[in-house]
């Protein structure tokens, strides 16, 4: 079993910081880890919410659902994104301002 964790980022990658926006983050850095906490893959995907005039939160979460993400790490989401995350059963960790790497370490301890 592996877990997919999406980090809200702008440039993307392990060294980028967690973005201050969820729906309008430029990218998601998606990290797949196995049960022992080993990183299996790191992928940077574009967030369609960043380009949307409105409905950014919903579009962003739709993308996360399509990618079968289990956990999202970001800032406090907007009302629509929050509702969608709850309904899609995606766990949310609010850790703004950290780098992806540091946030990942924190989460792996909790898992």
């Amino acid at each position: 079993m592996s877990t997919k964790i999406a980090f809200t980022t702008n440039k993307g990658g392990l060294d980028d910081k967690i973005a201050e926006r969820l729906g309008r983050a430029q990218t998601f850095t998606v990290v797949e880890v196995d049960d022992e906490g080993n990183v299996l893959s790191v992928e940077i995907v574009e967030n369609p919410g960043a380009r949307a005039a409105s409905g950014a939160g919903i579009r962003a979460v739709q993308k996360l659902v399509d990618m079968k993400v289990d956990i999202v790490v970001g800032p406090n989401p907007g009302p629509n994104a929050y509702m969608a995350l709850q309904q899609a059963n995606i766990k949310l960790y609010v850790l703004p301002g950290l780098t992806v790497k540091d946030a990942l370490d924190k989460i792996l301890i909790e898992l």
Partner: protein
Amino acid sequence: MSSSDLIEIVIASGKGGVGKSTIAASLAIILRNSGYRVTAIDADAEAPNLHLVLGIDRWDRVIEYHEGRIGSIRDDKCIYCGYCYDSCAFNAVEEKDGKYIINPWICEGCFTCSFVCPVKAISFKYNVLAGHIRIAYKTPYKFPLVSSKIKPGRPNSGKLVTEAKNLGRSISGGKGVIIVDAAAGIGCQVIASLAGSHMAILVAEPTPASFSDLRRIHKITKHFGIPSALIVNKYDLNKVFVQEIMRYAEKENIELLGLLPYDHAVPRSMAINKPVIYAYPNSSVVKSIIETSNKLLAILRNWENWKLKHIPEKIEPFIPIIIKPGS
């Protein structure tokens, strides 16, 4: 960049006409005069008027903002079947002199007509000019102003506000204070104004309508985990009702920054496009604005502590409404 290098303060109210722009302009001027690096952003793209309150009438840079799409029917391919006319949910397809045309003011760009068109006669123009972002780098107040402006008829856009905010942040160089004058309401633009900001100054007047809207906007600031402060404007119009608003603020851990009296100096200064603190420096409202600003300055000096004390505890849980068929 740590958050204390740059503090983004959003002035929001839910209800319109309570004094957001007047307060935003006054706070920006006073913070700048107190030595802070200030960047002002007008995030009310539908009705931008912070520049009018500040009396700014020329821009150093105007950036076009493009987005959305509009359909059009190619006359050489159209077979006049009328399927597009029948299917458009917005009635944007019109019949004129036996031809079908799409009214660009009504078209939402939903693609329904192009799905039903049997001969693929409908094409879409993308990235339509939808608004502008205007920048005044040099103003008499020694701070830059970024103003977003949506084209009439184009949909309300959180993306435009986000781009104006991003521009303002880069102009600020990641330092000082950003004052964001948000739109009324709690919609997409206001969400975009609040998301990622560090402090909300909520403005209310002592009326039930304003109080109701205050609670609605406060739900959003709590949602984003943004610490909030409150200014009650025109408080002397109903001193009894002010007590009710203050009780709410206390219960919800919203710091009361100040009470501003109703004063004709405000509309008079607006009529001459001059900030009230320069037009009527001895008026009672300006005295209260200065007291209010002093309280804000004290918060900024003690920012990390204040933030920790006033950050909302947790997001309000969302309770989905499930409607079962037949019930």
